[in-house]
């Protein structure tokens, strides 16, 4: 089981007893955390059978779905929150999945690594693709398929009429207030329609 600081950020947006869907939920750590601190009725979505097994080991409801195909089968507005933690950058159909999250959930919570983080920019200026704590893979083995910054994501939400209800940005677990697109390595958003 892994625990990440963004779990606490996400937990503060979740009310006790909510219905929560966690997309690309990994081993179910976040849901387990939310069940413990918010008593949520939680379901995870995974497409990797090893992670499905890990969720079952952790006592987490998990449904195997290929997120690239959307969330067909999940009912409109069924969940209070639909979460995708540090996985949006690994999905091709970015706009599709965001629309689906806001279809099946009242609100969406999305976190992602900020490619605009200054260390990443520095790396590019030095002629190499960034490798960091938030982007731990090499260019040739990364699961990430979309490379975007906080500013890019803000613009996408604008184009798609997605309301940004709250945005928190972090570096090494510390809140970044000033110049988040430059100084933050990870951003967590609370989105609505």
């Amino acid at each position, binding site marked *: 089981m892994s625990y990440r600081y963004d779990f606490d950020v996400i937990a503060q947006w979740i009310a006790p007893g909510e*219905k929560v869907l966690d997309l690309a939920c990994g081993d179910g750590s976040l849901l387990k955390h939310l069940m413990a601190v918010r008593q949520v*009725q939680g*379901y995870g979505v995974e497409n990797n*059978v*090893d992670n*499905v*097994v890990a*969720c*079952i*080991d952790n*006592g*987490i*409801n*998990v*449904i*195997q779905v290929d997120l690239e195909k959307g969330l067909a*089968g*999940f*009912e409109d507005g*069924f969940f209070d929150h639909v979460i995708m933690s540090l996985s949006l950058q690994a999905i091709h159909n970015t706009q599709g999945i965001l629309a689906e999250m806001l279809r099946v959930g009242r609100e969406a919570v999305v976190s992602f690594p900020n490619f605009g983080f200054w260390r990443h920019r520095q790396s590019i200026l030095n002629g190499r693709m960034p490798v960091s704590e938030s982007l731990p893979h090499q260019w040739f083995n990364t699961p990430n398929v979309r490379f975007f910054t906080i500013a890019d994501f803000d613009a996408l939400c604008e184009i798609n009429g997605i309301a940004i209800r709250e945005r928190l940005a972090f570096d090494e677990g510390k809140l970044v207030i000033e110049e988040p697109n430059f100084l933050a390595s990870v951003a967590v958003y609370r989105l609505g329609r």
Partner: protein
Amino acid sequence: MIRPQSIGAVTPQTEHFGEALNLRSGGVLPEYDLVYETYGALNASATNAVLVCHALSGTHHVAGYYEDDPGNVGWWDNLIGPGKPLDTRKFFVIGVNNLGGCAGSTGPRSLNPATGKHWGADFPFVTVEDWVTAQARLADRLGIHRFAAIVGGSLGGMQAISWSLQYPERVANVVAIASTPRLSAQNIAFNEVARQAILSDPDFHGGHYYEHGTIPTRGLRLARMIGHITYLSDDSLAEKFGRNLRHGRPMYNFDIEFEIESYLRYQGDKFSQQFDANTYLLTTKALDYFDPAFEHGGHLPAALARSTADFLVVSFTTDWRFAPERSREIVYALLHNQRNVSYAEIDCAAGHDSFLLDDPRYHGVLRSYFDRMKV
């Protein structure tokens, strides 16, 4: 952890029921026997029982082997035993031959107490629900009020689902594998072709072939052949047999030429020598009739609202008989009711029959689910 091993030699038992069973079809079985096997030990509080429901051609012989017939290994032996995913050191596992069967429980081959003759075509229609009712009576006799899990693949999965609807308070977990909440028109179509093969066999004699000393082996053989095609995937057939020719070239006759023909004939012959044609007819009809959503205007979520069990649903990507879409229907209907449900879609090439194989990812999912189960 111990090395997974066989439960060893097992012995079937028979339980006689003198009280009549009123069936959904309106028919009545005045009395009946159920033959069953058990593996492992029931704990003192009787909370570790797992019922394994069998599919079309399955029996109560789920695991282990017979002392006098060591080659006769249970049909789900790779799943059940000490150290196996359904571990008999933890669970008390039960397999029951269903009513209308031909492996020892009362069926068309049994004698009708009213006439002293074989039931034959007069054996009443039995449904998935009737099987579950009979299984519940057996559970009563065994002192099991609530099952840790009801497990089944294919038609067995339908029984597991039905258990959670008929006796919600008696089921903690349902494990429904390669199953469906109802047959599709295509499924029923294949069943109908199989039935017509049997019904049109001159040796069938309207189902009273026992009296005529005949067996409709030709019909049963054809029924099994067509069934078998639907259990396998296009890819698995291609991989196993391809277009391989027995003689290396066309012979321009109707003997066995392609290896797939040889395989199908072998499967058909083997099956027709051991299985009862009336059982096949009744069982395919039980498959066709199962549809818990029917009484709810076709709305499955409403039908499953009664169920309080936790569910594990598993499907296989190449299963076109009971495709993953059917399993997902079950999952989303349970989700609608906010039930605990997990779903795995196993990438396995073997089609519907994948549920009988020991794919490591598939068995990994089951092992985790059973390991975590509280008893």
